[in-house]
C-alpha cells in the first residue's frame, strides 16, 4: 500500500456533508499503482502499516473485498523475519509496529491460520518476538532490539497478543504499572514517563489498560475533561493544547473518550463536519486539514473517527482495536 500523498486535496466544504464512500474506495484501491513516484520508496519504512490503514478503511467503508486476499497474505508473510517479527517491507528488520499491523491484517481477513501453514514458526513465534520486547524491569516495551521505548509499542504488544490469544506471554501487571507512570497531572498520558500529554499517547495508554481490563485505574473525569478540551471552535480536535486541529485526532481523541464512556462530552456533529471537510470529494481520500493533500493515514483515521460518531454508511469500528467491530467479535468468539 503506497503512502504517497495526493494527488488530490481536501476540498470539502461545510455545505457538503456527504461521505463520498465510493470515491474513497477507488482512492485506496489505486494507491498501489503509483510506484513511479519518488515518495513511494521514501515511505517504504511504513509499508505494512499502510496496508493495515488501507485495508481497515475499506472494511469500514463496507468494501472488504476490494483488496485481493491472497496477494495481501503473500505480502504480509514476505515481511516476516526468522525471529517471528515483521518488518515494514521485505528485507527490513522486524519491528513492533509492523508486527502489530501484520497481526491486525491477518485477523481482519481471517487468515491467522496462514501463520501456521506458511509463516515462520506459527503464531507462537510471533508472540515470542513481541514478548521479547518487554523490559522486565519496568514493564515497558521496545520497538526493536535497539531499545527505543514508546507507549505505542506497549499498546501494540497487548493489541496483537490479545488478538492471537497469547496475552499470558507477557508480564501484564508490570505493563499496567508502566502505563500508570505515564499519567500526568492533567489526567492525560505521554509517550514515556514525564513526557507531555499527547492525544495519540492517550489512545495507546487507555487502549492498553482496556485490553488489560484495568480501566478502573483511569481518572475518567479529569482525562475526559482534558480530551474534550481538544475540540476547538471549528469542531476539529487538536493533539495537544494550543496546536492546530487534524482529522486523525477525531480517532485518537474520539476513541479514548469512547473507551471511558465520555464521547458525548464533545459536539459530535461539529466534529463530523470538520472531518468531512477534510475529504477530497472528487478523487477520494482525506487530509489532515481542509485544503491539504490527502494520504492513506488520514483517510483511515478520518473514516475510523466518522465511524465512531455513527456516520451513516460506515461499519462500526471497535474503539480499542481500531478494527471493524464485527472482526473483533469473530476473533474473540473463537
Amino acid at each position: 500500500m503506497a503512502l504517497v500523498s495526493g494527488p488530490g486535496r481536501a476540498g470539502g466544504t461545510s455545505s457538503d456533508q456527504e461521505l463520498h464512500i465510493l470515491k474513497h474506495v477507488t482512492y485506496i484501491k489505486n494507491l498501489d499503482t503509483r510506484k513511479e513516484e519518488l515518495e513511494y520508496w521514501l515511505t517504504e519504512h511504513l509499508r505494512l502499516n499502510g496496508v493495515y490503514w488501507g485495508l481497515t478503511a475499506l472494511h469500514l467503508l463496507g468494501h472488504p473485498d476490494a483488496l485481493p486476499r491472497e496477494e495481501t497474505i503473500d505480502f504480509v508473510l514476505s515481511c516476516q523475519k526468522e525471529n517471528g517479527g515483521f518488518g515494514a517491507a521485505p528485507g527490513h528488520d522486524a519491528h513492533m509496529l509492523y508486527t502489530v499491523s501484520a497481526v491486525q491484517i491477518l485477523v481482519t481477513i481471517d487468515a491467522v491460520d496462514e501463520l501456521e501453514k506458511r509463516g515462520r514458526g506459527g503464531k507462537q513465534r510471533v508472540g515470542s518476538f513481541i514478548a521479547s520486547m518487554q523490559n522486565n524491569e519496568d514493564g515497558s516495551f521496545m520497538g526493536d532490539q535497539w531499545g527505543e521505548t514508546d507507549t505505542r509499542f506497549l499498546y501494540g504488544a497487548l493489541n496483537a497478543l490479545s488478538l492471537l490469544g497469547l496475552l499470558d506471554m507477557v508480564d501484564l501487571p508490570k505493563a499496567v504499572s508502566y502505563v500508570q507512570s505515564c499519567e500526568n497531572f492533567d489526567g492525560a498520558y505521554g509517550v514515556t514517563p514525564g513526557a507531555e500529554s499527547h492525544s495519540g499517547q492517550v489512545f495507546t495508554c487507555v487502549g492498553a489498560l482496556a485490553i488489560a481490563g484495568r480501566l478502573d485505574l483511569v481518572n475518567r473525569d479529569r482525562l475526559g475533561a482534558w480530551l474534550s478540551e481538544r475540540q476547538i471552535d471549528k469542531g476539529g480536535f487538536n493533539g495537544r493544547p494550543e496546536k492546530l486541529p487534524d482529522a486523525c485526532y477525531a480517532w485518537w481523541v474520539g476513541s479514548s473518550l469512547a473507551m471511558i464512556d465520555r464521547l458525548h462530552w464533545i459536539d459530535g456533529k461539529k466534529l463530523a463536519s470538520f472531518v468531512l471537510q477534510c475529504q477530497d470529494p472528487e478523487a477520494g481520500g482525506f487530509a489532515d486539514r481542509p485544503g491539504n493533500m490527502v494520504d492513506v493515514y488520514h483517510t483511515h483515521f478520518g473514516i475510523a473517527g466518522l465511524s465512531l460518531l455513527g456516520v451513516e454508511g460506515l461499519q462500526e469500528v471497535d474503539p480499542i482495536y481500531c478494527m471493524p467491530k464485527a472482526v473483533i467479535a469473530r476473533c474473540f468468539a473463537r
Partner: protein
Amino acid sequence: MAEGYANDTEWANVTPIELDDGSESGAMPLATIAYPPEYLEATSYLRAVMAANEMSERALKLTKDVISMNPAHYTVWIYRARILFALDKDLVEELNWLNGVSLKYLKNYQIWHHRQVLVSSRTHFPTMPTKEPDFLMEMFAQDSKNYHVWTYRHWLVRHFKLWDSPREIEDVETLIKADVRNNSAWNHRYMLRFGPRDDEPDAGMVNAGKSQSKPEEKGRLPVVDEDLVDEDLKYAQKQILRAPENRSPWWYARGALHAAGRSLGEWEEFVAKFVEGDEVKSSHAVEWLADVYAEAEKTKAVEMLTMLKDKYDPIRKNYWDYRIRMLGQVA
C-alpha cells in the same frame, strides 16, 4: 552516482545482496517497491556488510550515505551506533554531525533515539555534553513544541540529574517568554519542579506509577519547599495576566498547589478579578471559582458552571451538565 559502489575499489571484495521482496515465492507482492538506482545499490551493499557484521570505516561511511538518502530507514541507525562504539569513534564529532541532520529532518525520531543511545554511554559522557542545551535551543527555534526534542530533554534531565541546573529553568523561561502558550515548556517546568527525582522511578507525577496510590496522592510531594512554590505561583500569575485564556499556567498552578497540599481557595482573590460582572476574561478562572465554591457554596458553583455551559464553552455543554449533576449528588 548509480554504480558508485560497484566501481569503487574500496568495495571490490563485497558482493552486494539484492533485495528479497518475496517475489521468488511465486507470489506477486501486493506492494512491489520501486527504488531509484542509487538507493538500491547502497542498500544492497548495506545488506552485505550487515550480514557479515562488518565493523569498519567504509561501513560507517556507507551508513551515512544511506541515511542521507533516507533518514527514516530505522535499521541503518542501529548498525551505525554499533560501529561507532566498536571502532571507538569520537562521539562528540558524531553529535555535531547529528545536529545538522536533526535540523534538516525536524520530524524524524530515529535521530533522537540514536542521540540518546550515544549520550547514555557513561564511559564517553560522565557528564552532559556541554553543547547540548545550546543545540536543543537551536532545535526549539525551529519548532518550540517538537515532541521528540522535549522527550529527549526530559531524558537528559533524568540521566544527568539536572533538575536544579540553572540552565534548565532558564531555557524554559526563555521559551515561555517567547510563547506563553507553549504547553511543552510548561510541562518541562512542572517536571523540573514537581516531578519524581532520582530516589524514585520516573513518572508524570510523583506516586503516579504505584498501583496502590490513591488519586489524591498522585502529584503530591512528600517534602515541600514553600518558598519555591510561592515563587512558582507568582510566576504562573504573571503568565496568566499575559494571556488569561491560556490553559497551561492555570493547570500549572493547580499542579503546584496540589504538590504542596495547598488549596485552590488560596487564589480566590486573584481569580475573581477575571470574572467581574459581565466581563469574563478567562473561562479557566470561572472553572477555578466553581471548584472553590463546590466546597461550601454549591449554588454559586452551579452558577459558574452554567456560565461555562451557556456562554463561554458551549461546545462542551454535556461535560458542564455532568459537572453540575455531580455537584447535586455530593450535596
